[in-house]
């Protein structure tokens, strides 16, 4: 297996994530796009790990860190979404133009 086949796949997933982040208007879907991008990063980390093979599995350890941070991010993100929905009755970012209400 080539290293590049994984890197290109990761790049494609990352590009999809960028597209989703810019196009989507629903907050939950924007968060989903961010998850897609983080996942692309994980593919790269694991691919480089099995390309370089460090004695301490550095790439895999960092993938675990990324997964953990992503979990924390979703927790906070969804709490904010719930709060917004409770106040505005909408999860659409275009409706969130006010700085206060």
């Amino acid at each position: 297996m080539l290293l590049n086949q994984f890197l290109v796949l990761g790049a494609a997933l990352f590009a999809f994530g960028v597209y989703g982040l810019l196009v989507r208007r629903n907050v939950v879907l924007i968060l989903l796009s961010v998850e897609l991008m983080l996942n692309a990063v994980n593919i790269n980390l694991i691919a480089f790990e099995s390309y370089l093979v460090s004695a301490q599995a550095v790439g895999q350890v960092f993938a675990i860190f990324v997964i953990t941070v992503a979990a924390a991010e979703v927790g906070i993100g969804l709490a904010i979404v719930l709060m917004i929905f409770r106040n505005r009755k909408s999860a659409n970012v275009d409706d969130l133009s006010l700085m206060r209400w």
Partner: protein
Amino acid sequence: MTFSDWIAEPVNWVFAAIGLAVLFSGFRVVTSKNVVHAALYLVGALAGTAGLFLLMSAEFVAWVLVLVYIGAVIVLFLFGIMITRAPTGLDESLSSDQTAMPALLSAAVFVVMTWASIDAFGTELLATVGEATSTQVIGESLLGRFVIPFEVVSFVLLAALIGGITIARRDLTPVEEEERMSV
């Protein structure tokens, strides 16, 4: 290395099958017109990614990905989606109408990254195939060389826990407060 050399290896067929599935799911995550479907396509993309990790002999990370992402993160997403009303039909307002510039930008991102990685690594092969990294190595690395990042991440999680509760908590009215106390 030509394409016919590449495709001659059975492991690359597996890669191609999983990779195409992941790409399709990833594409549907950002284009689907139904929130729940988008989340489920992300499950597909993540499951495929776990498969790729198994191909690259990262067994532990693959199952952690399934456990944390598919088992918890996406379930939380579904929870959030259902609490913020999830229609079973299609919803046109999920995406903005202006798709040209984002598409151009993401294509540019893809081209630049692909060009850079092909330029840098060409046809380099992966070193480890088949031998799974033992969980012991990862554990020793986490609690040895990376113990400080590990502690920092645990702090991030704690902060997220407290932050999540603080943000989502609704202040009770005095009447509700009294009811809560009496239960």
